[in-house]
């Protein structure tokens, strides 16, 4: 993927750069940060994550499977224990609950993986080891035509290094 990558040392500089780049519609931005930071969040201003839908569906699947497997297998070979009902749904709530948590949580993780495109087996273009340490990064995906302009903006906002990718 073609684009320009800029590494910043300061948070406020990064924020400024993002806002400017967005204003000029140079292309899709990717921001790199060692940790979650709200100023960046505000600047990027992305839509709400859809992971929560995975969670809901997973949880519902789980709870229904839990109840189903308990009730079905009890009726499949009816054996009376302690004079209790063959399919006693009240204790089976525990099975339902545990399955809800299990499947719900795992599908949440799956949701996160799928949405954030991991696991990825290669660290692709536009990444720099500094971004896991102290630096912030801004990658502007754009063709050679807009590259000049992009570089200029990044430098102007105080990028410690700017490089062309792809």
């Amino acid at each position, binding site marked *: 993927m073609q684009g320009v990558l800029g590494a910043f040392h300061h948070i406020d500089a990064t924020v400024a750069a993002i806002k400017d780049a967005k204003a000029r519609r140079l292309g899709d931005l990717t921001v790199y940060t060692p940790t979650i930071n709200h100023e960046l969040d505000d600047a990027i201003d992305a839509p709400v994550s859809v992971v929560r839908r995975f969670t809901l569906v997973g949880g519902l699947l789980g709870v229904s499977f839990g109840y189903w497997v308990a009730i079905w297998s009890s009726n499949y*070979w*009816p*054996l*009376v*224990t*302690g*004079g*209790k*009902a*063959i399919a006693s749904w009240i204790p089976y709530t525990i099975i339902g609950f545990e399955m809800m948590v299990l499947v719900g949580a795992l599908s949440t993780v799956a949701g996160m993986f799928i949405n954030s495109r991991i696991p990825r087996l290669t660290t692709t273009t536009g990444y720099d080891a500094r971004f896991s340490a102290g630096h912030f990064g801004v990658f502007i995906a754009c063709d050679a035509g807009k590259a000049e302009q992009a570089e200029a903006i990044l430098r102007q906002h105080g990028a410690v290094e700017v490089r062309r990718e792809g």
Partner: protein
Amino acid sequence: MSTEAGTGVKRREFLKILGATGATTAAVGCSSEQVGKLIPYVAHPDNTVPGVSQYYATTCRECATACGVLAEVRDGRPIKLDGNPAHAMSRGAICSTGLSAVQGLYNPDRYRSPMVREGNTLKPTTWDKALALLAQKLGEVKSRGQAGNVVFLNQHEAGTFPGFLDQWLAANGMPAHLSVDPLAPVATIAANQQAYGAAWPGLDFGAAKLVVSFGADFLDGWGHPVPQQLDWADARAKIEGAPRLVYIGARRSLTGLNADQWIPAKPGSEMALCAALTGKGTAAAAAEASGVPAGTIEALAAAITAAGSGTMALCGVTGADAVACGTMVADINKQQGAVGVTIKPAAGHGGYAGLSSFADVAAAMQKMAAGTVPLAFVRGANPAHTTPAAAGNFAQAFGKVAFKVAFSAMPDETAELCDLILPDHHWLESWGDAVGMSGQLGLQQPTLDPVFDTRATGDVLIQVAKMDQALAAKYPAADYRSWYIGKFPGGASGFTAALTKPSVAGAPLAARTAATPVPGAAPAAGTGEFFVHVFPSPTLGDGRGANKPWLQELPDPVSKIAWQSWVEIHPSTAKKLGVTEGTHLTIETAGGKVTAPAYIYLGVRPDTVAIALGQGHTAYGRFAKGVGVNAYALLAGGWDTAGGLKGKVTVAAESSPLVTTEGSARQHGRGIGQAVTLAALMGQEAEEGHGHHAIPGLPSQDFQSGLKSPIAADAQGEFADPQGKDKGMYDPAHSSKMEKRRWAMTIDLARCTGCSACVTACYSENNIPTVGAPYQGRALSPSQWDERPGANIIKGREMAWIRLERYFEGANDAETTFSADFDTRFVPMMCQHCGNAPCEPVCPVYATYHSPDGLNVQVYNRCVGTRYCSNNCPYKVRYFNWFGYGEPARRQYAWPEPMHWMLNPDVTVRGKGVMEKCTFCVQRIREAEHRARSEGQEMAADAFTTACAQACPSRAIVFGDAADENWTVAKLAYDRRAYHVFEELNTYTAVVYLKKVNHPAPASPAKG
């Protein structure tokens, strides 16, 4: 029934068949892949069906009673003994000792072939060599003209063999044999002979109103346990007209615990009491001598007069002038005109005919000690174990005999001293007869071919005779059997016909007449502040039972101690001496001293210590050797002079845990063993205690007996709803018809005497492992194993599916004061097969669940061993396989070859790590269902019963289908005395107990 019994399969094939019917050897969880062998018969024996039991009538020879028994034979080997229902004495019941006979038969320590002494060890030899040696020795003895000095010690038996033996001895110019039985109540026999002119008159408890027992333990093994117990229980079952029992003695034995009143008279004061009761002496004098309040004695006298001809006074006193005491007791009966009513000299028991007294044995010992005996024979008798040191060192005297021959089957102390062992058959392997009720003869037939390379002594004697030209002519018969049939009235055909009968009229052939035995003169009582009471163990007798793990494992009915000797001492005395349970006590008498752990018992006089005989073997096999101490050492005279000993008691520093199955001897008001006074039962006074009315709760949970009871209301859950969807096999409409049955059980505590025969029967039926043998313990460290006898039982790991709980009521401050007034509750406790079983829902794998016919089922092969079921069982009747008791490769293996031959092929042998418990003998239920179905008809009422109910000599246990009013159990469940244990837990048990009935003390001064 075939007279050719036992010839069905050759011994060689047994082991192979064993391989085929693998149920005996294998444990749960073994794979189905292994290819076993499938061994057919060589020639199929007549009228046997592989895999189906046959029953052979024979006669039990474990004690002098000679009950008729049926041997259950499966694929050519007996696996269990039952009482013969047709027999006049056993009436289908059997005692623990009788049941354990199969463990004598299959005992791994039996002599497996003839043995001959080489240096200090006995080496196996062949019969030809052995017989040649015997013939040679006989020849030498006779040629030297010493035949007159030969001694033959035979275990006492009343039958034809003693006569045959004496004929043989006479033919060889040898003196008559000595008939040895240390357990026989010689004094009583002598007294009976004098008073009634019969060695053992019949005792009719049915006709009795008041039984006064002077130390006569007729429920502990004194006399003839099974018939006595049957009569006693039947008599007591007539609640209102039941005979009352007063027990007089220094120790409250099992009989004493079943008595309505215990009068703890000083040992040796019985004479004085009798004097008072017969008007020959004053109550004051008797009170002085016995320490019993005069009021009580007068009350007793009054009670006897009131009972009149319904009086039955029995005397079991031993020691100083015991005979005289016995005759005086008989006088009580005579005065009341009870002879002929309760005491029936005419219908007596012939079992003690020909018994020798200890004096005779002592005389033989002197001859031996003098070295004048060239040749001695011993058969079954074990004087080396039972002869008190005070009466002479038997081993030493015996050692002086030039050549000693043993016909014994077991390597007991005496046999081990011999030079030549010619092992006899076990009685289950041999032909013979025994005298039972006088005038009746019980026949005995082999139930299998000999397990080992043994020979019947009768055959051996005949073979030896044939080797001697002089004698050969006298013994034309091929063997003992043909000799016997030759003499039998009606010959072979008469014999064949007779074999099928439980017993036949007639006297033993060639019965020899011997003088009535008399006890030896009692020695000086000795000194010491304590009376020392030595009594035969109800389970081990004089020690002959000690090699049978079932009897070792069976807790003593009174002390509940197994695999151990113990000294009984009263709480108050214990407190004074600073003794706690298990503290070692040394008893020292004129005879000698023994040391054993203390058992603190309410039922002994504070000035008395009691110790049981039976343990302390130095040989006699792996199960007997080194267990406990031999109390015969304490006797100051012969084995017939146990009574009236005095001695010193010293407290040792060390102590050892008691091998007991008892947790708490008190019920803590939990209403497990409930009782009702006669008055309350008759509605004369309000019933106190824990009736079900005392229990709050929903009416639906209130106890209703019979079909409407929880017994029938079990396994319902949602299935009570007829509109419910498919209920599988729980559907009353299901083709299996399982739903219509409700297996249930009633246990009548008014009948139960606590004898524990049911426990042994259960071991025998259900392949329950014994776990107390010294080699079965656990590892105390990587290198050291716990080899104490009963180590597993000390850890509470006994496996008895049914146990007898023995609770005491009253005498709560026994530590400070001595009270003879306490009540005992015997409660047989097994799985209650609860309708709402707490054990079932907690099992994660359905290894226990409720079957449609009302059983609480345990599926061994599904069990993973979480043991949660046991934790949740209020009755604590589930038992866990801590070790591989069923796995031959493990040191804890419970059935060392060939003991596994007695395993019941219908019951799985449990492997390690699984839970087991009472199944209500489900294998018998299924077998009965199979039979009914094959015969194409409905199962008849009372068609079968469980092993415990079948054996019970008190007829206290009744089993059956509570949903079908034709079964006895369904009727009994309606009894006014019925209750469930822990009813308040809503377990809806299928076992209904009937309350014990407490009779007023016959001789309480208050009531006068």
